[in-house]
């Protein structure tokens, strides 16, 4: 048996399953967005569902909102995780405890995290009670479901931080000490060492972290539905609304679903370009 065929057969059970399942799901969503697999009527290949969706303000708002929350969350998470990973590169007293604490949110399920946050920021939550007890306000202020989505972004950052930290910490710790010492020895100060050695050697981890966070947050339903602004929809919440809660319109939901996949793809491309551009610019500077 040729080696290539043997390899393909060996990989088939695992790799094949993933490819088949993914292809089926993607094909089904795309086909449904163009009128096929219609649960409410006749199957008819058409651009109607896309045209109707493009004419809907809610769709564009949801796309914009999802892109905004995902981009902001990814950037803020990286901005926090990178310095922490650098700081904790070398062990010191208490560094293991700090690392463990930073990873803790990863083990808290999303809904439990929401419940915990609500205890803190709800009308009757700890923050409002403290503000009132201190006399800073005479009635509770709106922290939950705030207009700008600050609570939502804060929760996303808290939840995504361990992922970014794990990826960046691994990359930062993989840089051998002699490589940094060599740069130092050749005249590179702390800033030059970061720009010319640390950043290029951790760019892939940063790229992976930013893309994964963007995709995770862009597809979020739970946090948006519970602590997000009530007047905004994410693509995920909009999709669920179309699919079940309000309309039972599977084709419209499929359009939103395909849009979400497209947004994830665009996010991946943009963050890849952004990280590579930043790395090149820093190396040249």
């Amino acid at each position: 048996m040729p080696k290539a065929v043997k390899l393909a057969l060996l990989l088939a059970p695992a790799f094949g399953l993933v490819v088949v399942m993914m292809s089926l799901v993607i094909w089904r969503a795309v086909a449904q967005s163009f009128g096929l697999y219609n649960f409410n009527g006749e199957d008819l290949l058409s651009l109607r569902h896309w045209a109707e969706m493009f004419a809907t303000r809610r769709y564009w708002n949801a796309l914009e909102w999802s892109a905004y929350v995902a981009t902001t969350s990814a950037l803020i998470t990286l901005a926090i995780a990178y310095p922490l990973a650098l700081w904790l590169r070398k062990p010191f007293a208490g560094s293991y405890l700090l690392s463990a604490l930073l990873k803790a949110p990863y083990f808290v399920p999303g809904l439990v995290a929401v419940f915990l946050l609500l205890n803190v920021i709800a009308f009757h939550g700890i923050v409002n009670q403290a503000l009132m007890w201190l006399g800073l306000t005479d009635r509770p202020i709106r922290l939950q479901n705030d207009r700008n989505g600050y609570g939502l972004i804060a929760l996303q950052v808290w939840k995504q931080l361990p992922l970014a930290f794990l990826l960046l910490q691994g990359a930062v710790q993989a840089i051998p000490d002699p490589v940094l010492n060599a740069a130092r020895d050749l005249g590179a100060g702390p800033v030059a060492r970061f720009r010319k050695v640390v950043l290029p050697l951790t760019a892939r981890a940063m790229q992976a972290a930013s893309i994964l966070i963007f995709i995770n947050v862009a597809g979020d339903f739970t946090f948006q539905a519970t602590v997000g602004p009530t007047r905004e929809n994410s693509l995920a919440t909009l999709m669920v609304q179309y699919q079940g809660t309000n309309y039972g319109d599977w084709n419209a939901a499929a359009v939103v679903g395909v849009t979400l996949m497209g947004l994830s793809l665009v996010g991946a491309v943009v963050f890849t370009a952004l990280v590579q551009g930043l790395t090149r610019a820093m190396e040249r500077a």
Partner: protein
Amino acid sequence: MPGIDIEGVAMRFGQVDALKDVSLRVPEGAFVTLLGPSGCGKTTLLNIIAGFLAPTRGRVLFDGQDVTGLRPEARDTAMCFQSYALFPHLSVQENIAFGPRQKRLERAETARRVTGLMEQLGLAPHAAKLPNALSGGQQQRVALARALAVAPGVVLFDEPLSNLDAKLRDQVRTEIRDLQRRVGFTAVYVTHDQAEALAMSDTVFLLNGGVIEQSGGPRDIYFRPRTRFAADFIGAANLHDGPISGGAMDTPFGPVPVDAPDAAHRTLCWRPEVVRLTEAGALSGKVAHVAFQGGWLDLFVTAGGQTLRLQVSGTHDIPEGATIRFDIPREAVVVLKDGANA
């Protein structure tokens, strides 16, 4: 090209003293080696000279100027690391140009140095390659070129040949020494390989347990070891313990001549290759084992339950079990200072 003075340097890691009050002088343009076993403090001392470590006590001076508190990037040094420590994301050319760019040299000067060093070290055909596409020897040459590109006054070598095979090690060893003479820099070389130290150095500092056990020229440190550790660590040595009387020490092999006054107890040392095989020799023993080494024979000779190692020309044909007679030149026998009653 500065000379280096180490004055009373000590280094403590937690409860461990890595260096204890070490003082030494490296003359301008000299090639000195810090030699010793693992954990003797040689790399710690090199890192202190480079500025990567701040000593617990003592001073480091370059040309009389105290540089103890100076950051590594501000010192006139460049280091060749044991692991090469090349920048994995930069090509050979970019690795070599890293230092000159950091020192803000003009582009033309940077290019001139990079091109010159690549040609000098045979790296020109590999200019665009990344380090992981090079062999160990080539990577070592890139590390050397990168260090020399900043035209440092002092080059520090941290066991740079330990990852190379024996033949390549000999070749790169000669290249480093030639380059040091041609380019002109003060070199501090760390190794645990005594052959490397003897072949390359103007001066060898032998370290043991954080102190300098002995220092001197390669010949001096090899033929005139002062301590049992120095005798044993550098090459093979034959040792005898006992009293000296009438210019000799009585041993099971016969009287070993020594140029020393009578004493109740001393330790004598001589190298295996100083032996002369002669029918009229004053010493004798039975050949227990013969090891042919090509250019020479290692003879393990026994008498009275003791064993000596002799080295003679490889052209000799001496069977195991034979009894041989030999002489040891008086001037080749030294009295060790840390002998039993010293």
